Each structure stands twice: as structure tokens, then as C-alpha cells.
């Protein structure tokens, strides 16, 4: 398994501790303390995953997240000290795939990192269809007609999970387990934010979604239109 992790954190002690834990689990951590240099280091080191502290000196963690997302679909896991809805949602909307609240257990951190890296394992060839969207699971591509839609790996996983069982309604908890790898109930805002991001990319009119449909009070399902 590939395991290059870029740790973007200004707190030297935390970064060092993260390094110890990650090395202990067989990952190769790279470190950058300054937000302004983060994107540069990211381009140089080409990591498989980014661990990003939201509160950074220089450019804000949110900005760093946006810049990295703009040029890569690499999994981004945020480290946040704030549990306020606004901060978490802002982080997720700027492109992070998952977040961990400080303080966290080493095991939890490693589990999240593994969950985000696992999907890079080779999948079996498979073609799926929802509405006018065609999904090539093995080839990691989503097309509407001839137009290729550019999804991040997480958005892709979310879409595939829904498309594999059309008509089935997925609760947010089930999606959290299947797509994010959470064992027990966690923050369902993760699902809400990512469904919105997915819709923004694949729906003709994100205000009136036809491919990923909300089932009020339950969750989401793949649309038939």
C-alpha cells in the first residue's frame, strides 16, 4: 500500500507526534508548517493523502484546501479544533473529504487515513448507469454523453455507492459507513456537504436534483431520470 502523507500543521509538537504515529503504522509522512508553502510542498512530494490543520499561520487552512483541491483529487483529511457547524461545513465545502476533531485517538486517526487510502485498491471492471450518467468503475470516469465529469475519488465513491443499488434509499449513516468507513454513527453533515458538492458537478440543475434525490426524513437515493 502506498502511504505518503503530507502533514500540514504549524504546531511542531503535534506534527512530530503525528509523524511518530504515522511512521509507526507504516506511512511516510512529509511535513510543512507554513500554509503559504503547503501547495508548493504538495506539488513536490505528490502525497497520497493530506492531513491539514485548519488553523494555520499565513494562508488559512481553508485556502490551502481549496488550492490543493483545484489541482488534485487527492484525499484531504482536516484536523480541526472547532466543532462549530460553520467551521466544519466551511472546511468540507472547500474540498476536504473528511475531518477529525482534536483531540483524537491515534487509532481513530489511522483508521480515517486508511479508509481514505483504501479506495485506491484496484476495483473490478464494472459499468453503471444513473439517468444520463454513465460510470466506468474500473476506469474511474463519469460521463454524460461525450462530456467527462471531473469527480474527486470521494465523490466518485459516493456516486458509485448510490448507483450500485438504484431505487434503494440510503440513510446518511449507511453512506457514512460505506463511503467514509465509519463504524458507528458520526457527523452526518459530511454526507450533506458532499452530496451537495456531487450535485453541483453532475446535476443539470443542482436546485432540482434528478440523479441524487433526497428522501425527506430518510436519506438519499439514485434517481431514475
Amino acid at each position, binding site marked *: 500500500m502506498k502511504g505518503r502523507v503530507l502533514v500540514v500543521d504549524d*504546531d511542531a509538537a503535534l506534527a512530530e507526534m503525528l509523524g511518530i504515529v504515522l511512521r509507526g503504522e507504516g506511512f511516510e509522512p512529509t511535513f510543512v508548517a507554513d500554509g503559504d508553502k503547503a501547495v508548493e510542498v504538495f506539488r513536490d512530494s505528490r502525497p497520497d493523502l493530506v492531513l491539514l490543520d485548519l488553523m494555520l499561520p499565513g494562508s488559512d487552512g481553508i485556502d490551502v484546501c481549496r488550492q490543493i483541491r483545484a489541482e488534485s483529487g487527492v484525499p484531504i483529511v482536516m484536523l480541526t479544533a472547532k*466543532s462549530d457547524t460553520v467551521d466544519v461545513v466551511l472546511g468540507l465545502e472547500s474540498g476536504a473529504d473528511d475531518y477529525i476533531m*482534536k483531540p*483524537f*485517538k491515534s487509532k481513530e486517526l489511522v483508521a480515517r487515513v486508511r479508509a481514505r487510502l483504501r479506495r485506491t485498491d484496484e476495483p473490478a471492471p464494472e459499468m453503471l448507469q444513473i439517468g444520463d450518467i454513465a460510470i466506468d468503475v474500473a476506469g474511474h470516469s463519469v460521463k454524460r454523453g461525450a462530456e467527462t465529469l471531473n469527480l474527486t475519488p470521494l465523490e466518485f465513491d459516493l456516486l458509485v455507492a448510490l448507483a450500485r443499488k438504484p431505487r434503494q434509499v440510503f440513510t446518511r449513516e449507511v453512506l457514512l459507513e460505506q463511503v467514509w468507513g465509519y463504524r458507528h454513527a458520526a457527523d452526518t453533515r459530511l454526507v450533506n456537504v458532499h452530496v451537495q458538492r456531487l450535485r453541483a458537478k453532475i446535476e443539470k440543475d443542482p436546485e432540482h436534483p434528478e440523479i441524487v434525490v433526497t428522501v425527506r426524513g430518510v436519506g438519499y437515493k439514485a434517481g431514475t431520470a
Partner: protein
Amino acid sequence: MTAFRQSSFGRAVIRRLPGRVKRGLRAARRWQRRAVARLGTHWRRSLQFRVVSTTLVLCVLVIAVLGFFLVQTIAAALLTSAEKSATAQAAAGRSTVLGLSSVLVLQQPEADSPTANAPYVAQVAARTALEQGGSAGNYLVAVYLTDPEADPQADSVPWVAENSFSPSATISSGPTGLLAGVTQEQQDEKYDNQYVPVPQYEATTLVGNDGQSLGPALAVGVPLGPYYQLYYVYPFTSEQAFLLLVQRVLVGAGLALAVLLAAIASLVTRWVVLPVRHAAQAAQRLSAGHLEERMRVLGVDDLAALATSFNEMASSLQGKLRELEELSKVQRQFVSDVSHELRTPLATIKMAADLLFESREKLDPGPARSAELLQSQLERFETLLVDLLEISRYDAGAATLDADLVDVCDLVRNSAGDAQQLAERRGGRIEFRLPATGCFAEVDRRRVERILRNILVNAVEHGEGKDVVVTTAMDNDAVAVSVRDYGVGLRPGDEQQVFERFWRADASRARTTGGTGLGLAISLEDAHLHGGWLQAWGERGKGSVFRLTLPKLAGQELAGSPLPLDPDDAELTSGSSGTGPYPTAKITGTISHG
């Protein structure tokens, strides 16, 4: 008593009336009652209405009293002047008639037939008197022959009248009081030739030939020699007309004055009331949160002073609120900073502790146990930190509701995990009594789960190993979850105190689950944020009930709870065996008792 009889009589009358009339009467009475009620409400609510109506009523009263006295005075003056002129005319008429040579007979009627020429003589006398009076309005002159020796059988009439009326009036009898007075004067003159008789007068009513009343009149009488009497009758027509005119003018002027005064009162009150109303409106808007609301200050009078004071109050309030907002912002920022500053090192410590804890087998017993303690106390520290931050977020007013339509029964099952594990260790069970249909409500999932986790763990912790019963029910407006335990219960008065921060039921009792002492305080805030209730019931030795009631729609006001807070008496008297008869009437799909 009288009133009762009257009303029962009235009812008896109404009973006999036909149905349609009765309905009409009832409707009229209802309408009247409503009108009176409306008027009463208006009276209580509107200062202007009160002032104007009071002014109007008082004004009408004063004008009525003044007018009454004025009319009385004028009438009396008119009467006096009429009497004066009438007596003067009567005296003048008497001397004119007596001066006529042709009517010397008046003085000395022929002895053998005193009444033979009487009608003629009387007519001449009457006509002379009438002509003497000139054309000063309509009046009647009558000559009355008083002859004690007159033949009672003679069909001649003792009255001979001349008048200027049209149609003419006649006279057949005079007012008896006046007749007696004039006869007395006549007697006095007979005995004393030098005596000048005084005209007598009396108010009377003039009756026309056709028997119709011609209205009140003044009759004046004076003796005309020893055998005749001269009478004048003046109808009060012109005086009455004048009095009527005066009355009309008075009523008209009075009404006009009353209306004018009412209008002035209305206008003046408006000057006062309008600014007061503006002030009330401004105060309302201010209390509704429009802090920039100010009143217009016009002039330097009392109302301007009101407006100025109001504005000063508003500014001061606004300033204070801004200060508070600023403080709250600072507080929130502080909480956020503390949160970040504490969490980052804590994260490092925690990972380090994890690492030590994992490798504790390689350590000596002392350091190994230290690693374990470090691990467990770090967890406790973290929970405390989370709770403290949460409560200070509430204190700073920074908590927001993230409501979503969810099944509260699901939340109950999801949040029971920790409590179930704890209950198993204690040897008890958690019994769920949830409706099969689900209980959907707009709630903040995270907060409601936190409340439920808290009250469930509390119930198991204080349940002394006995079973805990969780009941969920809903009605049209609310969803309720009640958690019943049969453990130590609460002392009287503790129902409120349990929600206080860092409160402990028994200070000496050891904490086994490491609660922070903030759980119920946070839960209460969570419930209030939903517009819901979190209430406790408890009795020493009989256990306790914690009931959470949430409105189905976020922010809706709660009127009641679908579940009772107190267990019913039957359960309490039958003893707290564990699974007593708990009210389940509203609940379907009870999960097994086994």
C-alpha cells in the same frame, strides 16, 4: 322583588310572542349586548374616546340646566309684562265704555226691565272696548251681565263677546275664580262710590267655537257699572311663539356648542394622545428589536420632553445592548481561542498517551499503571473540556439549532448504546416502549442524542441495577421521551436542582462513570434551544422520571406533553418492583417485557 316580578312578567310576555318576533328580540338583545361590550372596550382602550364622550355628556348637561332656567326666566318675564299691559288695557277700556253717553244705561238700567236692552247694551260696550284697544293682536272682549233678578228662563245669554279672531271665538263661561274676584270688586264699588275697581286677572285656556283649544290665555276682568262686567281674553299665541323660538335657538345653539366642544376636546386630546400613541408604537418596535427606533421631538413642551426622554432611553438601551453584544462576541472568540489553544496540545498529549498505553506491557508496573491512569484521566479531561466549551457556547448565546426531520425513536435506539453496556454490567436491562410507526420531528439530531444519552446513562447509574423503562409517544404537536428508573430517586426539591451545574445528589457518593456534572445542565439548554422541556420527577426510594418533550416543528411553542411526568399513583402504591404498570395506553408496538 319588584324587579324580579317585572322581569318574570317580561319573560311571560316574551313566551307568548310568536317565534319570529322572539328570535328578532333575542337578536336585538344580542346586538345590544355586543354594542355595549364594544363601547365598553372602546371606553377602556381609548383615552380620546373617554375625554370626548365625557366632555359631550357634561356639556349637554350644563346646557340643558342653563337653558331650562333661561326659558323659565323669560317665560316669567313675558307673563309679567302681559299681565301689566292687560290690566292697563282693561282699566282703559272700562273708562272708555263708561264715558259713552249711549251706554249710560250701564249705570242705570231701567227698573222695570233691567235685562230688556242688555244684549244690545252689552254688544255696544264690547265693540267699543274692542275698538278702543286698537289692532294690538288678536284678543277677545266679553261683557257679562250680572243681574241677580234676571229671569232664569230667559234664553238670552249672559255673555256677549266681540273678538278679532278668525274664525271667531265666543265665550260661554268664565274662570270661576276670576268671576268671583270681579264680582267682589263690583260689590266694593257699589258700597263706596269713590272706589276705583282694580282689574283682576287669571291664566286660563281659551276654547274656540268648534271646541278646539286655542291654547293658554290670560283673562282680565273689571266691573262695568253695577250690572255688567268687562272681560278681556288675551291668548298667549305670540308669547308662546316667542318662547318656542327661544327654546329652539337654545337647543340649536346648545347642540352646536356641545358638538363644537366635543370637536375641540377631540382635537386637544389628539394633540396629547397622538404623541403618546407614537411613543407606545416606538416602544413596541424598540422591544421588538428595532433598536434604531427614535421619536420625533417637536418644540420644547411636555410631549417633547417625553420624546427626548424616550430617545435617551432608547440610545442608552442600544448602547448597553451593543456593549453586551460586543462582550458576547469577545466571549465567543475567547471560547473559540481557548478551544483551539487547548485542543492542539491535548491532541499531542493524547496521541503520546495512546502510544504509552499501547506499549505498557513493556514498561515496569509503576510506569505501566501511570500510562493507564494517564489514558483514563485524559478521557475525563477531554469530556470536561467539551462540556465546558459547550456550556460557555450557550452562555455566550452562540448555540445554533441545526434542525432536521428525524425519527426520534431512532435517536432513542442510537443513543442507548452506552447506557445499555453500563446496564449490562449492573445486571439490569433497558426496556424500550416505542411506537411502531416512528416519531418524526424537526430536531437537532446531535443535541437530542446528547440529551437522551445523558438521561439514559443517568437513569442506569442511579437505577441500582434495576430495569430502566424508556417510553416514547407523540401527539399532533409534540414528541416526548420519558426515562423511568426504579433506583434511589430524588429528594424533594431536587427536581430543579439536578439541572444545575456541577450539582451532585450526594456529595459523598463516588462517581463511577466519571460524569462531568454538566451533562444535565447542557441537556436542559439543548431542550430549551428546541423550544422544548426537560423535566424531572423523583421520590426517595421510588426512582425517578426524566421526561423530554420537543415540539414537532422546530421553534413551535409547546402546550403540553404526550406523556405524563409523574408515574400514576397505582404504580407508586404497588411498590417499585422494576417493571410496574407504566402508562402505555397511547403506545403501540411495545417491545417485549421478557
